[in-house]
């Protein structure tokens, strides 16, 4: 058994939450730079310019990239040969989020659903845990904004609706969300599983690099086709009209029940923030 002290986890999550909110990753910066070159709409070009400038200011002057520092979502792959020492694993993650949002001067955006009273420390975070072979702990700390989450949707399609139904729902979801979700957006599409699994797949798909494509050639082609269809909507950066509404479409798929065709569409604004830590 490998021992990991929960204090190590607390510090790792804290540092990752802070880094995610101040440092734009290279993958997204490259996508913005490409967008500034390729966008035909002058207003849209100006938005890409502003986003590059925003990232520079955030990093250099230590101002969060976005005032919505998000709900913290943590994907944890826990090696089954690890023994956690000194406290609970989930509580350590929550404590890391708490410290990161307080010490990092990040906005606390979590509240009671009905009274709307703020919990004050951005907890509880959402934690998805998988037990995997080995003795490593892989944490992905995501700061997910509320605006793009609000534009996200889940559909339980009839199997007869098939691929055409999936395409329709993706395009319709983006058309409805429009400028509200801070385009240029990234779309995570979860196909199959069941009701809740499709949503988790959609969120997990957003962890992929914006520049990559699916290893399965058929799904890679579908991603490309969906991206073209979404960009044909003309919504553009900030919704001001333009060629680039989405920077990428990312699909994750798994088998589902013979009666079902679940499809979840998780929208990610351009302020895509996630940091990986391997312990």
């Amino acid at each position, binding site marked *: 058994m490998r021992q990991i002290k929960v204090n190590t986890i607390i510090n790792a999550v804290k540092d990752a939450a802070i880094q995610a909110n101040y440092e734009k990753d290279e993958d997204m910066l490259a996508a913005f730079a490409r967008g500034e070159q390729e966008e*035909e*709409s002058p*207003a849209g070009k100006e*938005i890409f310019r*502003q*986003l590059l*400038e*925003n*990232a520079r*200011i*955030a990093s250099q*002057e*230590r*101002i*969060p*990239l*976005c*005032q*919505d*520092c998000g709900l913290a979502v943590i994907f944890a792959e826990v090696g089954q040969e690890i023994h956690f020492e000194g406290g609970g694993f989930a509580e350590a993650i929550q404590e890391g989020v708490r410290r990161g949002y307080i010490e990092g*001067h*990040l*906005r*606390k*955006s979590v509240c009671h659903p009905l009274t*709307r009273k*703020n919990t004050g420390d951005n907890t509880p975070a959402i934690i998805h845990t998988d037990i995997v072979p080995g003795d490593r702990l892989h944490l992905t700390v995501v700061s997910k*904004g509320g*605006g793009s989450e*609000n534009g996200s949707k889940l559909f339980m399609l009839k199997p007869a609706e098939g691929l055409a139904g999936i395409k329709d729902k993706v395009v319709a979801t983006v058309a409805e969300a*429009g*400028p*509200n*979700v*801070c385009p240029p957006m990234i779309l995570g599409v979860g196909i199959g599983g069941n009701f809740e699994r499709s949503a988790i797949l959609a969120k997990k798909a957003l962890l992929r690099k914006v520049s990559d494509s699916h290893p399965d050639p058929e799904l890679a082609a579908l991603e490309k086709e969906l991206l073209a269809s979404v960009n*044909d*909507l*003309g*919504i*553009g950066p*900030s*919704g*001001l*009209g*333009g*060629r680039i509404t989405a920077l990428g479409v990312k699909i994750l798929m798994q088998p589902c029940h013979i009666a079902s065709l679940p499809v979840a569409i998780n929208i990610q*604004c*351009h*302020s895509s923030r996630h940091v990986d830590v391997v312990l």
Partner: protein
Amino acid sequence: MNKKVKLTPPVTDDMVRDLLMGDQVLVNGVIYTARDAAHKRLLELLEAGQKLPVDFAGQILYYVGPSPARPGRVIGAAGPTTSTRMDVYTPTMLKLGLKAMIGKGKRSPEVIAALQEYTAVYLGATGGAGALISKCIKAAEVVAFPDLGPEAIHRLEVEDLPTIVINDCHGGDLYEVGRREFARVR
């Protein structure tokens, strides 16, 4: 042709009429912030016949919940939140004399009609540019509902805060026109 203008409150009807969809507007001077929670309280005060903490006549309202200021700083990140969530409250605010709103995202048909009825304008700021916009804010203080934290009403002094006219008081809608210009049917 779109123009670039500065806008400083108090905003008059004539100033609003002059602003057209697509115009770049640099907002200056004193503006106020409010999100859903603050709007809800304002309307509750109105219903109870009580005085509001701010006189909104001729003013500009910015839909923002800033991140906390670091010690020695004025404010944290301060980009716009989605305006759609305020739609239900907006016609009442316009009736009180509010002249301009800064946010991001679509407004309801009711709000778009109310902009024409009360001669007011909806300005878009770049969503997700919270650090960039923060640099335009020179002073900030909470003037009402401090218990709401980031959702409290703040009084901000701003310098050349960059916005664009989304919905003008003549029925112009930049989101619609912009989208149609670039939409492709294959």
